[in-house]
Structures are given as C-alpha cells and as structure tokens.
C-alpha cells in the first residue's frame, strides 16, 4: 500500500504530513514510559521484524501478492504508541537506507500505514477484548479482526485523500469499491499472518502481549521451604485504553491540518500537479514485485521500491519535520524532567 510520490496534491500532502508529525510527536510523548521500561532495543527489534516481514509476500489472487503491513499486530504486541513509532521507523529506513523512494510521500505513508492501521487495529482489538472471555487467548481473535478491518479502512482513508487531493476526477464510489474490495483481500492475508504471529506469542510468551497484559493470571510461587504463595505478576506497563487525550490530539492535528491546507489551496502558487494526474493503484506495485525473493534484498535493495515521481509532497515532508521537531522538543523537555525523577525506579 506504499503510496508513491506525487499521488496527492500539495494541500493533501501537507495535511498528511501534519497528521503524521502530530501522531509521531504525540506517540513519542506517550510511548516514553513504555520505551523507558522495555528499552528502545525492543522497539528497534520490533521494527526490524516488521521490516523483514514486509518482504514476505503472500498470494492475494489474480496472480498478485500482498504483504503484511503489521500496524494492528504491532499495536497489539507493543502498544499503540510504540507501534506508531515502530511503523514510522520502518518507513524512514526504507526511504533513507534503501533509497526506497518514498521520501516525499513519507507523511502520507506514515499516516496511512503507521497511524491509521495502528489506531484502527488497536481500537477494534480493545473493543472486542471487552466482549470476549477474559483470558489472554482472546487477544488472538480480537487482533485478527482488528488487522482485517485496519487494511480496508486504510484503503478507505487513501480513497478519501484521493477524492480530496487527487488531481484526476474519479467517481468516488468506483474508486472506493475497487480500493476497499481489493484491500479486503489483502486484509485477509494480514489477518491470517497476524493470527499466526499472535498465537505463537500467546503460546510461548503470553506476558509479551501488550493488549492482554490486564488479562494475566496470578502467579504461584514456591519458596525455599516448599511453601506456596500467590502473587500478581509484575505489570511493567498498565495497559490503559487509549484515552481521551489521544482523541484530543488527533482532533487538534486534523484541525490544524485542515486550516493549513485551506490556506494552501487558497494560494495555488503555480505548482503544477501534472504528476498527480497520473494515478497508480497501489496493487500494481504489489503485483510488480510478486515473489521477489528476500534473499536478494540485502544486495539489491528492497524489491518494492517505487519511483518517486513527486511534486508538492516535499512540502508535506518539510512541514512534517518542522512540526515533528517542535512537538518532540516539547515532549523531550517534559519527559526529561520526568526522567530525572524516575531514573532510579526505572533502572
């Protein structure tokens, strides 16, 4: 689903850039505690895992293949905030280290694949966990459904973006049907892999699943004299549902993004959007790299590289960086103050 450069016009790129920056900045702040306890290594390894798994293609049909996006899975495993950072990191590495196009479409890609899939996946997972039996195993079906839904929703968001910011007039219904229909198939693959990964984790290390931390059974401890006692397992991070504050953050970002893009579109400053007149269905990219062997990728770079054919997307990226830095600055000021207090406790 990697969106190529130049797909959207400048205001849309700015808007998605802002959303991405806001989400990353906000996640940095919220994930700070998770990352201090479990370490950046865990997030980094999760990112390396997502990166590697995105290279594994599965057949979707009609001779094409898709690959795991991993947003819902990552959210269930490491929590939504860390997951946003993990997905953003994957996209950044694909762009910078492997010349995998995408530098100018970074904001759009982070928004669709790093934020939308994570949020949708996580909220569906949480909602279903409330309905399902209260045990760790419930996280498997809950997240599977979350993963299944997250992909077409991201496709729908893509469609929405295209309707707002695509330069070619296409009937909304037609585009939405094609995109969502296709991505339900991709979502099925996503769901199968997500279910398999979570089953494996629940079977071997149930304590690792972030979304199910609150469902763990108490521990029975046998001491040196053979006496048993029951203790509650250590819960390093309370799995709090993503609360109101996140909604507020997203709403604020959207508002800012909307206002800025209004201004931007009120001043079409002569940037020409010829490139955006040419659209590429994301499935085309998937089919282009069907079965590309992972073995070669260390040498020749990522198989699914796209050509950057961008124009105004760059503005989105620049704004992304500026806003992200500002937010991160604020976050780091706050968190370093907090870090001083908790250094000893956390170590």
């Amino acid at each position: 689903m990697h969106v190529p450069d130049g797909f959207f016009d400048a205001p849309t790129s700015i808007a998605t850039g802002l959303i991405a920056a806001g989400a990353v900045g906000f996640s940095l702040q919220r994930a700070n505690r998770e990352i201090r306890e479990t370490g950046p290594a865990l997030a980094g390894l999760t990112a390396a895992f997502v990166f590697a798994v995105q290279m594994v293609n599965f057949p979707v049909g009609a001779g094409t293949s898709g690959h795991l996006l991993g947003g819902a899975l990552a959210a269930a495993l490491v929590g939504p905030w860390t997951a946003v950072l993990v997905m953003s990191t994957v996209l950044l590495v694909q762009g910078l280290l492997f010349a995998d196009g995408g530098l100018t479409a970074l904001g759009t890609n982070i928004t669709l694949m790093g934020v939308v899939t994570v949020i949708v996946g996580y909220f569906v997972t949480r909602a279903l966990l409330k309905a399902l039996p209260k045990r760790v195993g419930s996280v498997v079906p809950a997240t599977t459904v979350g993963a299944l839904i997250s992909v077409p929703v991201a496709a729908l968001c893509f469609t929405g973006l295209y309707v707002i910011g695509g330069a070619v007039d296409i009937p909304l219904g037609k585009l939405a049907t094609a995109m969502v229909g296709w991505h339900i198939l991709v979502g099925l693959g996503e769901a199968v892999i997500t279910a398999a990964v979570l089953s494996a984790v629940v079977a071997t290390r149930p304590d690792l699943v972030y979304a199910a931390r609150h469902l763990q059974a108490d521990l029975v401890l046998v001491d040196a004299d053979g006496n048993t006692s029951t203790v509650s397992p250590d819960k390093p991070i309370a799995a709090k549902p993503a609360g109101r504050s996140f909604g507020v953050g997203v709403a604020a970002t959207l508002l800012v993004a909307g206002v800025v893009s209004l201004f931007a579109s009120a001043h079409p400053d002569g940037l020409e959007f010829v490139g955006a007149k040419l659209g590429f269905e994301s499935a085309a990219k998937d089919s282009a790299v069907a079965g590309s062997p992972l073995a070669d990728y260390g040498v020749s770079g990522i198989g699914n590289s796209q050509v950057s054919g961008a124009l105004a997307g760059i503005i989105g990226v620049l704004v992304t960086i500026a806003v992200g830095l500002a937010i991160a600055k604020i976050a780091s000021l706050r968190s370093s103050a907090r870090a001083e207090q908790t250094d000893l406790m956390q170590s």
Partner: protein
Amino acid sequence: MSGSAGDGLLVVVDSRIHRLPAQVKIVALFVFVLAVVSTPAGVFWAFALYAVLLAACVALAKLPVATVMRRLAVETPFLVFALVLPFVATGPQIDVLGVSVSESGILGSWNVLAKGTLGVVAAIVLSASTAPRELLAGLERLRLPSTLVAILSFMIRYLSVVSDDLHRMRIARESRGYAGGRAGHLKAVAGGVGALFVRSFERGERVHLAMQSRGYTGRMPQLATSGAARNQWLEGLTISLLAVLIAVTARVASL
C-alpha cells in the same frame, strides 16, 4: 549475499562525497529533490541538466555505474507500468483511476518517469555513500528526537540478524521438501513469521538486559560526530543549489 542488510546500499570506497558529513548530504538530497519536483514537466532542458548534475555526483562518489543501474533496475516494473499507463485503456488499475490517452497523460507519464528516476538516483547516491552509522549521526545532528534515533539505531543493527533468521527458516522449510503452493504457502509463511517474532522480541529483551547490565538508565550516549564546517556545507550543497537555480530559471522560462 555480498553485503548484509545492516549496511543498506553502502558502496565502500573513499570519495569526496563519502567524506561529507551525513547531515549535509541529507539536507542536500532534500533540496535537490525539492528543486526537481517543483520544475514544470514541460521544461525538458532542465531535466537534462539535473541528469548531468546527478551523473557528476555519481562520478564524484566513485560509484560504479553498473551498480547504480542495477539498483535502478529494481524500479523497472514500475517504470514500465508508468510508460504503458497512458496507452492502456482498460485493465483493473487503470480503469480504477480513469486515465485515458491524452496529451496531459503523456506529459504526466514523462513527469513521473523523469522526476522519479532523478529522485531515486539521488537517493541512491546518499545511501551508497553514507554508512548507516553516519546516517544515524546525521539525523541526530539534524535534531531528530533521540528516542527515534535510538529505535532506528537498533533496527538497523538487528536488520541483518533478523533477516538472517528469516532466511535460515526459509531454507529449513525448503530443505524439508516444502516447495510452495498457493494454499499451503500462506500457512507456512504465517507460522514461520510467528516464530520469527518471538525470536526477535526475546532478543530485544536480552539486548535490553545487556544494556541495563552496562548501566543504561534511559539515555543513549550521543554518537560521536563533529559538526559540519561551513565549507563542507558549501561543498555539499553546491549541486543542490545549482539545481535550485535551474528550477527557478525553468519556472521563469515557462511563464
């Protein structure tokens, strides 16, 4: 494999461009791509000049042309697709987005091809001339939040380890007679991926333990880098500034 995934696309030679600080190169890449994408598609001579500038970069960086072309070849399916697009009336993808053969369609195709190729070659120059560690240090210098730099650093360090794990698991699967089939494929892949996650996650835990054992308390040490001197900025940005000049001229000329 001639290189491991942890090295990205790095080509190990010594050149002026390799020696430039990474932060300079990252900024230069952004400025260059910005200039290229804001050039009107119809001003063909501008793109020719960009190509000359990039060719000079590739030569300065002493990158083997064959290597650059081979990496560019990874994009070929997409390029072919772009070329074919304006002329194909039906088909699932094109039908969806309603592109027809038109002058603007052809110009659009050229636009994507030209800007796309230039952008990718520019990105290849960066990633082939900059070691991952330098890239990280550059991003740190450019004030990317330290938490992100830390995650990036661990991700890059363990990319090769995780990829090797995945590779070994694939070989193990295939050596047990698994040839791959449509229905069985997804299941086999999914099972392997589950095991891969547990491995990766447990390694992440062990790495964190190893870090704590050496006194980690939540702050990664800075990667030692020196700031870029003014003349390094000037040197690194020369080509990008030329590109900006071309972009401005092209825009004025097309008025």
